[in-house]
């Protein structure tokens, strides 16, 4: 252990926290973002080094063992995961962060430094333990759903809202007992841990795939707030600062997501959409749609001047991002203008589509968000919808009785013609038929998105050769 005064320690922590803030600030533009991320990681490195130097007089070998094991696992996970699996990876990292915060808090009550723990520290311990444990199991369930180990459809068990409410009340009750010094005991802590672990599972398991962006953002926020709680437990300002930055970030993203779905957080958690009754009244009618083959589609695209691609989760499932880029490049060589319309909740986490398309070398300045692109559909000759559904349904603008009424949608129906790449006629996550498909200007191209796009690319090349 080096003699490092608390002042020096805290100044180093201040530098770390500043680097985190500057790093996050640099995420405001793709040109500075990478550098920002590196600054933040530098901040982390110096915080870790000063902590080891100041505090470690024994168990140094255990710290190294922990860092080496965790570091290797982190490197392996981050290097080899596919870009389509990023939501799962972020989910599981959230879980680990929450778990670590909970363990730090639990440790402080198992092995207290002073014989009497103040009410305030007890409250912080209870808080971190609850949020950290809940984040841990909730994230694992989210991971399981995204990885499709657990069914992605909402799993609805009877009386779940009553059970969940009861569970949350119990957690609050035991948390209060935990904070009262005379009642506080290890058994209460164990009950609290068990209840919180269970709550994480029960809250996430009824959430359907399309609501995942909200849950991932929320868990992200919880892992941050749990870390801030651990900072109160340990009296450590850098934990508080970093934890609250992450907490704020997760909350902002959660809010953006639920706004983009025109829903409330309670509505997402209680499972209003995509539940049992939604799908039944939808698929009864047998309405006619127009379909076309890849040759026709290629012809339409080949003669279009302005084309907007509208990717959705189906793109990630089909892994067709590289094929889209290839198609787009051929069209661009012919002088066609290409843009991509990205709905905030397209995919399984905030910004999911942007990362997939960036992976395929599609320039980020062609990726437009809802506000930027919606006025441009009027000028588009063709809109190509790839694996997106509910976010393109014009019924959200027109039919107040629809469950998705009021949800901001991409105005794909305003384009002069629409090609929808689809595997089958199944309705979207919300179980509502998409009115877009039945418009006169819409043609459906059935089949695997990747194959269809590849074939279209070939056909367009042939057109050029004639």
């Amino acid at each position: 252990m080096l003699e490092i005064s608390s002042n020096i320690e805290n100044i180093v922590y201040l530098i770390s926290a500043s680097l985190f803030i500057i790093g996050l600030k640099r995420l405001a533009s793709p040109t500075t973002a990478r550098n920002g991320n590196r600054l933040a990681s530098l901040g982390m490195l110096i915080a870790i080094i000063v902590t080891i130097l100041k505090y470690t007089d024994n168990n140094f070998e255990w710290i190294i063992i922990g860092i080496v094991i965790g570091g290797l696992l982190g490197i392996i996970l981050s290097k080899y995961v596919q870009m389509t699996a990023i939501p799962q990876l972020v989910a599981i990292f959230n879980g680990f962060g929450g778990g670590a915060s909970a363990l730090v808090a639990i440790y402080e009550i198992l092995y207290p430094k002073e014989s009497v723990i103040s009410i305030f520290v007890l409250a912080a311990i209870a808080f971190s333990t609850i949020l950290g444990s809940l984040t841990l199991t909730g994230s694992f369930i989210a991971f399981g759903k995204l990885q499709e180990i657990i069914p992605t459809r909402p799993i609805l068990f009877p009386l779940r809202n009553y059970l969940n409410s009861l569970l949350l009340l119990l957690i609050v009750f035991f948390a209060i007992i935990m904070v009262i010094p005379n009642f506080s005991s290890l058994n209460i802590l164990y009950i609290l841990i068990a209840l919180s672990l269970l709550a994480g599972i029960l809250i996430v398991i009824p959430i359907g795939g399309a609501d995942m962006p909200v849950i991932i953002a929320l868990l992200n926020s919880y892992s941050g707030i749990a870390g801030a709680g651990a900072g109160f437990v340990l009296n450590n300002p850098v934990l508080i600062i970093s934890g609250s930055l992450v907490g704020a970030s997760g909350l902002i993203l959660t809010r953006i997501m639920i706004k983009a779905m025109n829903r409330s957080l309670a509505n997402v958690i209680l499972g209003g959409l995509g539940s049992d009754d939604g799908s039944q009244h939808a698929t009864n009618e047998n309405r006619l749609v127009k379909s076309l083959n890849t040759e026709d589609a290629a012809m339409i695209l080949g003669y279009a001047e302005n084309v907007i691609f509208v990717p959705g989760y189906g793109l990630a499932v089909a892994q067709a991002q590289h094929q889209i880029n290839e198609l787009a490049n051929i069209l661009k060589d012919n002088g066609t203008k290409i843009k991509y319309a990205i709905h905030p909740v397209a995919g399984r986490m905030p910004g999911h589509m942007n990362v997939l398309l960036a992976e395929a070398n599609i320039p980020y300045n062609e990726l437009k968000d809802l506000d930027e692109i919606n006025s441009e559909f009027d000028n588009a000759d063709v809109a190509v919808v790839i694996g997106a559904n509910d976010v393109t349904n014009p019924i959200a603008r027109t039919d107040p009785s629809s469950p998705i009424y009021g949800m901001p949608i991409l105005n794909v129906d305003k384009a002069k013609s629409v090609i929808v790449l689809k595997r089958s006629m199944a309705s979207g996550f919300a179980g509502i038929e998409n009115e877009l498909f039945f418009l006169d200007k819409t043609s459906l191209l059935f089949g695997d998105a990747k194959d269809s796009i590849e074939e279209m690319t070939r056909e367009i090349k042939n057109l050029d050769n004639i």
Partner: protein
Amino acid sequence: MDLLPLIIIFALSLFIGYEVITKVPSTLHTPLMSGSNAISGIVIVGAIIIVSNANGILAIIISVIAIILATINVVGGFMVTDRMLAMFKRSKNRD
């Protein structure tokens, strides 16, 4: 440190977080999540502090697991964010 300064730090950090993060464009929301997640791995500092006080096998097991989880979060989070951000490119000579 006293309680009050900690609460002040907490409140001000929330404001800074709000201001900084609302400026992140939706294009970068995924890297924002994984990057901020890596920052929440700062709890590794807490984990290191508890390991260095740990006596007895259970205490060491708990604190070393905390270090492992936090390190995965830190190393994995920053590296995967870097990998993602490396992919974001502007189009050349177009627009």
